[in-house]
């Protein structure tokens, strides 16, 4: 009787452990697949935004995205391009950003509680509008 109970206990324990292990493996596979999908999606978005910004710097009048997350990602890329270029194409890109309302976004980000967000806003505003943005940036920063 005791031996039968013990056997039953061992079998159930092994089954439970196996089930937990299988579930853990499935969860891990799902997490890896999700992370890869997310990376691919992020890379594809970055490519799309970079194309949009490069076209804007060449004078194209495409509409900027309206979703908040997209605008954040696009503004990070824009800061990178603005800080590495000068000349006519940079001016066209800055103009496109201003027409697309990114100066308002930047001012809003500068009032955010997150230091990173405030920095993003200040840098974008200064790079896109240049010297005229300094008083605004200082007022908001104060």
């Amino acid at each position: 009787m005791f031996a039968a109970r013990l056997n039953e206990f061992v079998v159930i324990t092994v089954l439970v452990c196996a089930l937990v292990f299988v579930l853990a493996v499935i969860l891990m596979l799902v997490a890896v697949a999700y992370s890869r999908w997310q990376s691919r999606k992020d890379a594809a978005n970055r490519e799309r935004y970079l194309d949009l910004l490069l076209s804007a710097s060449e004078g194209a009048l495409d509409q900027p995205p309206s979703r908040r997350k997209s605008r954040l990602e696009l503004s990070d890329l824009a800061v990178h391009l603005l800080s590495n270029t000068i000349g006519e194409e940079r001016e066209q890109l800055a103009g496109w950003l201003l027409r697309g309302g990114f100066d308002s976004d930047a001012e809003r980000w500068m009032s955010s509680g997150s230091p990173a967000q405030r920095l993003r806003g200040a840098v974008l505003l200064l790079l896109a509008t240049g010297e005229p943005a300094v008083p605004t940036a200082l007022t908001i920063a104060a």
Partner: protein
Amino acid sequence: MARIAVIEDDADLNRLLCRRLTRADYEVHSASDGVAGLAMMKEHPPEIAVIDWMMPKMSGIELIQRVRQDPELKSIKILMLTARSQEGDRIRAFTSGADDYLVKPFAASDLIASIEALERQIDR
């Protein structure tokens, strides 16, 4: 039009350079570090190379020195594109074998003008 190798580790700037040069009708190949750049140039020898200074695996300076030591690549015209703007940096780039030097931030028009000047040197 000349064949150009772009060797720049910043993926966004690499794309920007390729796009500007392709728009100007150049045939462009690109790599994202010095080692890959050297291999690419051996496979598709360009007439002109645009090389960043600070890159992983092999710096732009080391890459230029390797190019100048390679009998098959040594005639390539090299434009160094870098954020380093000190006088000493320019001198080091030129003594290592660069033919021209462009500082970031740069204008696309400056880039194309430099490439055209290097093309004229090739034609001479």
